[in-house]
């Protein structure tokens, strides 16, 4: 059985040998280079654009502004508010105003100065609280509200009346940069006057296809997008390549040359999307025996200057705000507000890490006030099979929540390690005596709605293509992408298992929009699950073709044939044949040897008026336990161990799965402890390189113990339900809860940098004089 085995990754050899070709490794004959003229202002009116033609000519540069766009000047994502090149107003620092194309990168950069843009500065807004319903400064619509979602259940006032204890808090989370090691880039290659191919580092080639077709006004069938080996994405290459590919496509259209644009690290950090910063106010009520009675959330997400993916990100944030708990009375109000910062977008977890941080802090605070072990408190409230979630959905299958908690508790030795947080005054007194180092342990329990859910339902279909080759090998294609997560490997295992062909003989074709129909994006941990289902559909059709031809050879009826290992076996005649030999016969008899597969995700629905529905088809569950050591003198937090237990339905490849857990967990450590984009007062980005934007190194990584729980999803391929995002989502609160457990101080803003922890200690000293 090939399913469940830690088979080596299909793409590993190319990568370890340095032979994988990333976008910056590719070049085309006579390729030209693109540079972008960007706005230096956060908010300004463009009064005039003057081109110094003499200078442009000297540098051999072609210049394009909004006027030169042959199609629509809109980069389509969700709300169609994002221009490719600003026409009248610029709304964030770095917004593209013009492109410049020249024979070499140096000349392209120099030619930027041939474009003179005259601006008139406008008042700017960076704080979403201030921007919401602003009377005069309008960045989006007439109230700057880009998106609104809500959850409502029961009677919130009654819920608080019934509570014996109410905890209120305000939480803040930062903009987080993806910091994929390969920066973004694209190359557009024109073919004749109305056809184009774009190569690039990306997650969602079909998004890019539409964006480029719209910008150039070409038919979609003449726009082909080819994904190159992608050096990390994490959501950062979801919508951004729409813009970058459109820029190079415009350059190629204007010059009729292949046009390349590879972002420098600074350009990438300054101008591409990041995780939305958020402010979350949360009020939670519980009975004295630790049962939730009410949860109220006011949730404000900073959308930045354009909507891009914000409505979808906010949807997920809103629906994850109550956490994996039963609660009879719920009121979640989620708003995304436009400001004059770079547009924020998708990042692993997609709006949920922000609210889950708040939610898990609140849960921990209630447990502490009620003097209950935080695990026990969670156990009393966690969703079990058959329970109704806060948004009204009955959760009826694949609910491994409690099992993840049990395993994490056991493996971490929680029973022996956890004791209530020490009294803060005691900690301070001991610190004065020189005992600065304090150990603590903390927990978070979270859930994740797998797939696009109801907000992205129209995109939730996947195509595939499977073709048998005369030598008994097989090639397949899908429309979702390998971005480092291991999709090629896992899908190859599925095809190998479905057709009885050796894993080594199954190969995936590069992702190219001309191979399969629009299969939606590679996001929301959906690639394995939904391309997997589509491939199962294709393979099932191929099996029928195969059985029909082979049946007479096995003196059997085709309905009595099945695949076992590498054989086709007849249950009636008990004869068998190697699949490889069967394929040869298929070719000899001129049988059809290829099929397209199709899958439509199971139904979802959500009624935002009522704040209730069935927002996702299935949920994944996770418990994280973190062990830390806090230095009260410096505020430094050392994260020693993390136990991350995940219910993934089924581990198709435990090795790549653990790789996802470990990598996501460390990004969560970054989010909770280190990473924060610092903006300048003018709305630019100060921390614009990897020397000032710090991501965890080998020295910062804790020991990460990944624990796999398998509670199969009845509709998933072999029971699988995805793993991409969950590992990051609950790490920050596990860390801050462990900090509390160590020194008795709550951290309500992440990352928990030494400065912030130290400040929290000082604030608490102020508030509780000895």
């Amino acid at each position, binding site marked *: 059985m090939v399913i469940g085995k830690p088979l080596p990754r299909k793409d590993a050899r190319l990568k370890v040998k340095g032979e994988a070709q990333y976008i910056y490794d590719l070049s085309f004959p006579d390729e030209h280079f693109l540079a972008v003229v960007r706005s230096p202002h956060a908010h300004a009116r463009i009064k005039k654009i003057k081109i110094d033609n003499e200078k442009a000519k000297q540098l051999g540069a072609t210049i394009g502004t909004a006027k030169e766009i042959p199609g629509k000047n809109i980069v389509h994502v969700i709300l169609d508010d994002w221009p490719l090149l600003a026409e009248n107003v610029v709304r964030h620092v770095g917004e593209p105003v013009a492109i410049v194309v020249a024979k070499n990168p140096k000349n392209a950069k120099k030619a930027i100065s041939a474009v003179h843009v005259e601006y008139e500065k406008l008042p700017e807004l960076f704080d979403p609280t201030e921007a919401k319903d602003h009377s005069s400064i309008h960045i989006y619509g007439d109230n700057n509200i880009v998106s609104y979602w809500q959850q409502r259940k029961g009677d919130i006032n009654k819920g608080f009346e019934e509570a014996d204890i109410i905890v209120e808090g305000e939480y803040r989370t930062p903009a987080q940069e993806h910091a994929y*090691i390969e920066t973004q880039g694209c190359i557009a290659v024109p073919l004749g006057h109305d056809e184009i191919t774009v190569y690039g580092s990306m997650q969602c080639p079909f998004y890019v296809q539409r964006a480029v077709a719209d910008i150039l006004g070409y038919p979609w069938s003449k726009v082909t997008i080819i994904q190159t080996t992608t050096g990390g994405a994490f959501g950062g290459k979801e919508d951004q390549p729409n813009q970058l590919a459109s820029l190079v496509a415009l350059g190629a259209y204007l010059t009729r040359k292949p046009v390349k644009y590879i972002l420098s690290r600074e350009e990438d950090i300054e101008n591409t999307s990041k995780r939305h910063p958020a402010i979350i106010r949360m009020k939670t009520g519980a009975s004295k025996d630790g049962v939730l009675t009410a949860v109220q959330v006011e949730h404000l997400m900073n959308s930045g200057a354009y909507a891009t993916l914000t409505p979808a990100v906010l949807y997920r944030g809103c629906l994850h705000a109550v956490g994996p708990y039963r609660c009879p009375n719920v009121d979640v109000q989620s708003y995304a507000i436009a400001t004059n910062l770079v547009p924020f977008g998708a990042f692993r977890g997609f709006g949920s890490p922000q609210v889950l941080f708040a939610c898990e802090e609140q849960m921990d605070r209630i447990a502490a006030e009620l003097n209950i072990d935080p695990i026990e408190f969670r156990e009393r409230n966690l969703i079990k099979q058959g329970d109704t979630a806060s948004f009204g959905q009955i959760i009826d299958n694949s609910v491994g929540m409690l099992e993840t908690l049990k395993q994490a508790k056991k493996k971490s030795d929680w029973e022996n390690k956890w004791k209530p947080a020490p009294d803060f005054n005691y900690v301070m007194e001991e610190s004065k005596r020189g005992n600065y180092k304090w150990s603590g342990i903390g927990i978070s329990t979270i859930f994740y709605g797998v797939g696009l859910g109801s907000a992205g339902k129209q995109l939730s279909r996947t195509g595939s293509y499977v073709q048998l080759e005369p030598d008994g090998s097989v090639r397949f294609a899908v429309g979702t992408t390998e971005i480092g997560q*291991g999709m090629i490997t896992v899908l190859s295992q599925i095809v190998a298992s479905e057709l009885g062909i050796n894993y080594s003989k199954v190969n995936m074709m590069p992702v190219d929009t001309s191979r399969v129909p629009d299969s939606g994006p590679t996001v929301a941990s959906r690639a394995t699950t939904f391309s997997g289902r589509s491939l199962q559909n294709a393979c099932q059709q191929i099996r029928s073709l195969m059985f029909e031809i082979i049946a007479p050879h096995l003196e059997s009826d085709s309905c009595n044939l099945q695949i076992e290992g590498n054989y086709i076996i007849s249950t009636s005649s008990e004869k068998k044949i190697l699949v490889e030999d069967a394929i040869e016969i298929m070719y000899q008899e001129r049988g059809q040897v290829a099929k397209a597969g199709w899958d439509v995700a199971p139904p979802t629905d959500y009624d935002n008026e009522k704040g209730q529905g069935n927002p996702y088809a299935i949920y994944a569950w996770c418990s994280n336990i973190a062990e830390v050591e806090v230095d009260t003198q410096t505020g430094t937090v050392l994260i020693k161990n993390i136990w991350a237990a995940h219910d993934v339905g089924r581990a198709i490849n435990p090795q790549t799965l653990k790789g996802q857990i470990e990598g996501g967990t460390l990004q969560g450590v970054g989010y909770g402890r280190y990473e924060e984009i610092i903006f300048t007062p003018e709305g630019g980005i100060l921390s614009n390189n990897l020397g000032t934007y710090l991501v965890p190194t080998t020295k910062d990584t804790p020991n990460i113990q990944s624990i796999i729980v398998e509670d199969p999803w009845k509709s998933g391929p072999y029971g699988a339900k995805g793993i991409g995002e969950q590992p990051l989502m609950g790490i920050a609160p596990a860390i801050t809860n462990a900090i509390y457990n160590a020194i008795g101080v709550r951290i309500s803003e992440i990352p928990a940098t030494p400065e912030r922890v130290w400040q929290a200690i000082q604030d608490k000293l102020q508030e509780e004089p000895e």
Partner: protein
Amino acid sequence: MKIEIIVNGVVYREETSPDQRLLDFLRDDLGLKGTKKGCDQGECGACSVLLNGKVVNSCLILMAQVPERSEIETIESSDSLILSLQESFIENGAAQCGACTPGMIMASSALLREKPDANLNEIREGLSGVICRCTGYQKIFDAIKDTQRGLVQK
């Protein structure tokens, strides 16, 4: 300027300019594109190569700083330690997106040459100049420990 250097055991006599970066010399002039990059500023370590046995960020080294007849090793090398690290990275699933992998393997080879029995703390120290955003480093540590044990045959 003309320079004679030995890359992966092969002697090259090439025309270069003193301000060309070693990274570009390797990738563009010699066509050795296995050396990757992620920042061009000495911060990510993706461009790590060995210059006379020491691991350096090739994006920070100018050709003027490369002594005549220097020995350079890159991910394209067929050195046995590098080969066994590569196998071990495959076996352990230590490469995900792969953008850091050549640099990580070069830094690992320098570390193991200097300290074949490096313990986990020394490994953490030795690799801290190469950022990996995908793996959480655990499988990279495993791959190095496996190489140390000589468990994986090339």
